[in-house]
């Protein structure tokens, strides 16, 4: 495989969990809620996936990951919607909670040494015919099947958001929840479901990290991906397709280290570790003024 193909494969590999999480957060933010607790959903999904896959196999593992994400997100939903807590603070608390809980449970269940136990993993699967496409076939179509699920979910969410009344309702809630309420749309229920959906995909993202990539769980392995995902949502301008593109761009940047290594350039490895975060900052600055967030994002508008 050429250096470029390695680079592309690494890109898609890195992009997959990011895209899942960002897609879920897109739906949440389109309903006007910013969920910085996404990190908590991801790490919960990683742990949930790890545990479930351990006794029920890979696909069940992903289901367990998704459910774990939903559970964490539902706590956030309760605080934000029912108790009208400040979304930023509530989300931060949920992330801290998720990180702390998963670390505690992991040590409790698997021993204080934190030894790397492994579980069945999901390997790459070639798509017949398509994986022979020159240049991109070996990377785009030779991925763990969960990535193919991603390829399918993105357009599904897109169609749902723009070509169904339910999607229109979601977007209205995110733009102006008072107007949406006046039009008869159940605002709180919409936001609640949007948060849960975001949590589900966030959990799946965590599952990808464990089941389709590392094969084991480590404390804090989400490594800020939840926050990067939020940036990806901004860069993708809150549009499912844009978010996928933004996730790929990010992943490409951090996969650059393979290209650089192949070309024999020696750069301190910390540069590549820091690169996604630096890119997030640059990207967010660059998008300034050009992207408009959903009108009621982060605010709480009274419904009466």
């Amino acid at each position, binding site marked *: 495989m050429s250096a470029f193909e390695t680079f592309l494969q690494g890109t898609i590999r890195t992009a997959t969990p990011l895209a899942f999480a960002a897609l879920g957060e897109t739906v949440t933010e389109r309903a006007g809620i910013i969920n*910085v607790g996404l990190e908590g959903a991801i790490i919960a999904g990683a742990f949930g996936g790890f545990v479930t896959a351990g006794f029920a196999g890979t696909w069940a593992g992903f289901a367990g990951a998704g459910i774990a994400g939903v559970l964490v997100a539902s*706590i956030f939903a309760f*605080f934000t919607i*029912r*108790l*009208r*807590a*400040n979304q*930023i*603070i*509530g989300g*931060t*608390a*949920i992330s*801290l*909670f998720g*990180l*702390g*809980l998963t*670390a*505690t449970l992991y*040590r*409790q269940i698997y021993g*204080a040494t934190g030894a790397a136990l492994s579980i069945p993993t999901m390997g790459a699967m070639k798509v017949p015919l398509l994986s022979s496409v020159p240049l991109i076939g070996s990377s785009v179509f030779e991925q763990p099947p969960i990535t193919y699920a991603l390829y399918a979910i993105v357009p599904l969410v897109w169609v749902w958001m723009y070509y169904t009344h339910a999607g229109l309702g979601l977007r209205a809630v995110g733009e102006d929840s008072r107007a949406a309420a006046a039009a008869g749309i159940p605002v709180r229920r919409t936001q609640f479901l949007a948060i849960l959906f975001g949590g589900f995909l966030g959990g799946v993202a965590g599952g990808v990290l464990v089941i389709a990539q590392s094969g084991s769980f480590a*404390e804090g392995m989400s*490594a*800020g991906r939840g*926050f*990067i995902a*939020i*940036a990806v949502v*901004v860069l993708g301008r809150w549009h499912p397709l844009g978010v996928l593109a933004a996730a790929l761009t990010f992943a490409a940047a951090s996969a650059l280290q393979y290209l650089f290594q192949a070309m024999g350039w020696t750069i*301190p490895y*910390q*540069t590549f*570790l*820091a690169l996604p*975060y*630096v890119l*997030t*900052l640059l990207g*967010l*600055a*660059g998008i*300034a*003024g050009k992207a408009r967030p959903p009108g009621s*994002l*982060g*605010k*709480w508008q009274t419904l009466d």
Partner: protein
Amino acid sequence: MTAELALFADSVVRAVPLILTGLAVALAFRAGVFNIGAEGQFLVGAAAAAATSIKLASFPGVATLIIALTSGAIAGAFWAAIAAELRRRFHVLEIISTIMLNFIALYLISFVVRGPLQEPTHIYPQTESLAEAARLPIIMPGTRLHAGIVIAIIVAILLSWIFRNTAIGFRIRAIGAGPRAAQTAGMIDVERLSWAVFLWSGAIAGLAGAIEVSGVTFALYENISPGYGYTAIAVALIAGLNPLAVIISGVFFGALETGASALQRDFAIPSSIAGMTEALLILATLAFAGLRNRSIGLSGNER
């Protein structure tokens, strides 16, 4: 030296960075600036303090110490300024930018302790130890309790006084609780004041890092912060963003984490339980505030 006293002293030692970073967070949150970057600001403050202490080894001890602490504060303010500028010029949400900067700071420290500041034998990923004279004095003999606690308490009292009695303290509270009203009715330049508060918040967090290096670790290494900047959020929120209450909250969390370490050592209960407890406490505070239908001094709306 009784065991209880030693444990208490240890809790206070643990509390110093928590109090200071908690104050940094409380100050920022009060002004409506969601500075989640206390962790990164702490780290760069620690790095700056270590670097100056080591490079200025020829200066008299007290001078080195003061310069080290000051440079730590300045470094923290600088790190916060990156996010503040991104917020001001590009409307980048500071919760995202500060978290990104936390990670960048982490890798920066990793690079620095393996490169430019690495100890002379080039074996361990850490700096050389600080000279005796450049260290904070111990105020309780037989323990690790250093003068940093005094600094922390002074900063807390100062902030409390500012909030209660001064015009600028009132303005800071106003921009956090009602930014639009502050602008329209109070004629306050919200953007400029938030920017300034952001930097002061970073400075306090940076000072916390400098104190930790100068008073406890006496060197810079990779895991110098077990997440102080994140725990600080819990510390600040539980204290209701009240500077004096942050002292108590900080000591409480310090005891929690000291106790958690002891629990892990003696009873094999994961010390991560502290982190979880802290998060649960935040949630409990939020629930309580929500049920009483009051915000914790903040408007629920975005600016």
